[in-house]
């Protein structure tokens, strides 16, 4: 400031400053309530490829006979245990191979220690250690039924119904039972790392915001370039948003209930619908442009605590639907979200060498760089892969059910600070 100002001029400057500050304050206070001038959205087209086609390098099996997040189709659980005509004459050696066969839906070792099976190499601990099951005095019929469909004894079982869902036939279940009966001595692990009860939970210590550590971060530069590229309408993001830094908390409040669409709107779906309505560009969900822009919008809000609205009537109903979906059994393996990610079930345990995280901590780093695939996944692709991996059909990325689930998950992650793009295995 110029200290030689005349008093009257000084006063005028002060008054002017106050006006400017009031104007800024009113803009700031308006910012959260942008409903006065709603962001333009293209409302009538699909936000993802339609009809949805599974990613080219993913398994192509048809799981239409099993539940998805959008429909119920799985066969019912049997009402009573199967009666066997006599003792099982299975092939224990064949059974030992089957329990480690990862092509059948993850194998028994994913969840159980089983003595020498799979070379005692990184078994999981979601289910009990079966290394001494042969001493338990269990009858063939009981063992057969537990493998065939454990729900006949425990309706709440996490175990896949291997027989009912067609993963193993009767002969194969007999072979597995024959192998189980040979297990009579405590598990001997090859190293402490192999013992799932001693294996330390993985800690992600890499600096995800270092561009020499996390190639996902390069998407920020790509998005900054895209920001200035004019679409078919002749305008670009920069036409209306000259300074992207105003989005320094926006993504932390997403997803949100959008009455105009009657669904939950995520950052990625917003990017498609808003861009379509303004610049005219077609940045479908899962396109490289869409993912880059989502990374950038989240990146701009890094450090902000996740804070989504679940109080408005539409949002509350969506939250409740999303919460209910986390308990739905899906696919041929018949897993719900909670089966794997709730600590009272499989959460915070090992499936073979992979750690199952709980729901909290599964949202604040998305979109995230996947080192195993050398690519960025948004949360919707993560949802899709969970389903395909447990042998369920996925939904298109813009499915309403994913919106409900994402709002619920974001709410569970409330308070965690965004750190995007994350880096994960």
């Amino acid at each position, binding site marked *: 400031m110029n200290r030689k100002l005349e008093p009257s001029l000084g006063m005028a400057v002060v008054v002017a400053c106050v006006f400017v500050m009031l104007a800024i304050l009113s803009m700031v206070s308006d910012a959260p309530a942008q409903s006065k001038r709603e962001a333009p959205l293209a409302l009538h087209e699909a936000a993802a490829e339609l009809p949805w086609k599974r990613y080219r390098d993913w398994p192509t099996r048809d799981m239409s006979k099993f539940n998805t997040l959008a429909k119920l189709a799985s066969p019912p659980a049997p009402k009573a245990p199967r009666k066997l005509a006599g003792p099982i004459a299975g092939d224990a050696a064949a059974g030992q191979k089957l329990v480690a066969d990862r092509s059948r839906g993850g194998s028994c070792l994913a969840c159980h220690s089983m003595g020498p099976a799979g070379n005692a190499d990184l078994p*999981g601990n979601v289910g009990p250690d079966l290394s001494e099951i042969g001493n338990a005095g269990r009858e063939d019929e009981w063992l057969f039924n537990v493998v065939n469909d454990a729900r006949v004894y425990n309706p709440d079982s996490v175990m896949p119904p291997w027989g009912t869902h067609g993963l193993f036939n009767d002969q194969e279940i007999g072979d597995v039972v024959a192998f189980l009966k040979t297990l009579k001595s405590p598990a001997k692990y090859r190293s402490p790392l192999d013992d799932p009860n001693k294996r330390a939970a993985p800690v992600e210590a890499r600096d995800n915001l270092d561009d020499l550590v996390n190639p996902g971060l390069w998407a920020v530069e790509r998005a900054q370039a895209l920001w200035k590229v004019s679409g078919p309408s002749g305008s670009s993001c920069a036409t209306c948003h000259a300074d992207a830094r105003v989005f320094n908390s926006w993504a932390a409040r997403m997803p949100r209930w959008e009455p105009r669409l009657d669904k939950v709107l995520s950052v990625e779906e917003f990017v498609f619908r808003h861009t379509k309505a303004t610049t005219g560009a077609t940045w479908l969900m899962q396109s490289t442009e869409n993912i880059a822009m989502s990374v950038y919008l989240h990146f701009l809000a890094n450090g902000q605590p996740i804070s989504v609205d679940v109080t408005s009537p539409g949002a509350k109903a969506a939250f409740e639907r999303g919460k209910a979906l986390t308990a739905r059994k899906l696919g041929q393996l018949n897993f719900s979200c909670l089966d794997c990610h709730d600590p009272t079930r499989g959460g915070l345990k090992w499936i073979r*060498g992979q750690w199952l995280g709980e729901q909290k901590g599964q949202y604040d780093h998305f979109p995230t760089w996947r080192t195993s695939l050398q690519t960025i996944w948004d949360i919707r692709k993560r949802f899709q892969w969970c389903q395909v991996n447990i042998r369920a059909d996925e939904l298109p990325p813009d499915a309403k059910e994913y919106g409900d689930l994402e709002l619920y998950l974001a709410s569970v992650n409330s308070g965690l600070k965004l750190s995007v793009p994350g880096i994960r295995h």
Partner: protein
Amino acid sequence: MMHRMTRRQALALGAGATAMITVGDAPLAFATPADADAEIAKFTGGKPLTAGKITIDLPEIAENGNTVPLSIVVDSPMTPDNYVSDILVVADGNPRPGVAVFHLTPLSGRAAAATRIRLQTTENIIVVAKTSDGKFLTERKQVKVTIGGCGG
């Protein structure tokens, strides 16, 4: 950290080793799959290896083998008349054992290098360092590469 093998471990690794290692005065046979051995022999010209003086920093367990951070430090001066000139890295369970050879100079300042590597499976990373006076040091470390839960 010095890597010392017990006699039992050395025996368990079995025959087929060609690289001779000395720990103190006692010669030990490191059994590496033949290809890894050949790669090391090509580098050393068949000269003997001395275990130790190399610190390998690798995760004990890798959730995938696609990009495993590897850091190597050799306890050595880096002066014009006494320095580490070359560092060979091999992985004995990969389709091909060679990973990289680093060439250093006194201008490197420290006998150290780091990179990120691909591992096919649970396997040993073997590092051999050549000093400017023609000696060869070696060290190894196993990385357990995780088996996924859900299968394919």
